[in-house]
């Protein structure tokens, strides 16, 4: 009895329209304070740049890509998005803790094994990493924030990310349904 109550509670999420409104207000506040929107992939990029610069400073400085994100007066990890993403981890942890969702596990369809799920997650992350650099930002920084500022780039990101998902969904159905 107690056990089933815990399961039910952990599946209780905020109403999506309310969540959307709250997320919109967070985004609006971000624009009002910083003049820019939210982001996520940029923080991972900073981590990559910092790692490469630590391993070989000359390699990073000599690259046309890494050097875009390296400046003399600040460390690549000491930037806005890195701190914002640390905040995301803390905020999500708090929400998960309050809802009873903290659990170390691999979430997957009963039709596939944990191992398959992890391989697909790794491949998906790799592709998303490449795509986010080519597309100059991910679902947060380009699609969501770009839409709010009416950037054409935001709407292209929305249509291609989700359109791409629908386009390829058929081939990946056995991993999900």
């Amino acid at each position, binding site marked *: 009895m107690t056990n089933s109550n815990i399961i039910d509670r952990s599946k209780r999420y905020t109403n999506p329209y309310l969540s959307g409104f709250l997320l919109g207000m*967070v985004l609006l506040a971000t624009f009002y304070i910083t003049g820019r929107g939210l982001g996520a992939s940029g923080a991972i990029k900073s981590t*990559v740049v910092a790692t490469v610069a630590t391993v070989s400073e000359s390699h990073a400085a000599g690259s046309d890509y890494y050097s875009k994100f390296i400046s003399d007066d600040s460390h690549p990890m000491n930037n806005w998005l890195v701190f914002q993403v640390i905040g995301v*981890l803390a905020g999500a942890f708090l929400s998960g803790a309050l809802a009873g969702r903290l659990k170390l596990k691999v979430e997957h369809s009963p039709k596939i094994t944990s191992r398959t799920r992890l391989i697909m997650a790794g491949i998906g992350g790799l592709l998303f990493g490449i795509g986010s650099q080519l597309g100059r930002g991910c679902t947060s920084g380009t699609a969501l924030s770009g839409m709010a500022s009416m950037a*054409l780039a935001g709407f292209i990101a929305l249509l291609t990310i989700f359109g791409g998902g629908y386009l390829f969904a058929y081939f990946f159905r056995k991993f999900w349904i």
Partner: protein
Amino acid sequence: MTGPLIPMGIIGQGWDLVIALLIGMAFGYVLESAGFSSSRKLAGIFYGYDFTVLRVFFTAAITAMVGLLYFGYMGWIDLSMIYVNPTFLIAAIVGGLVMGLGFIAGGYCPGTSMCGVAIGKIDAMVFTGGMFVGILIFSEAFPLIQGIYESHSLGAVKVNEVLGLSTGTFALLLIIIALLTFFITRIVENKVKKVEY
């Protein structure tokens, strides 16, 4: 106080990172409480069994868009100082499609994978590791990709300008489209076989 506050110099640069942390916390809290830490919930949008992503995403984009227009109209914010993402047509389209492929394979996007990591999803941790490798591959292969990356630059162009509409008309049009998709996806969701997760 006319925003944006930090670029206007109203809030000092020293507060930058504290604000980043607080905004990030609110962002993460809202995403996780909406269910975005679950890849199976996120993937629902692509198979029609759960359109939460669409509802949250569209509502958020419209709320912030209309909010910005209203703030600008009231003179609370200088809209010319708001960042508009530049469009590089080919890179945006190819990059977006690659992200779509990554989304359907991995079940997360970067922000939502962070939410998964925060509550202990091992698949989200692997996804994040994959992103690190992907960005490293892109960066190392940049000389090969640079041509595509920089081609067809349109600058920081706005969607309403491309369509020849005023900002207000475009916002209204998008609200109507959103309401229609909310209505249609509700019907689809009811017809599609339920998936337990």
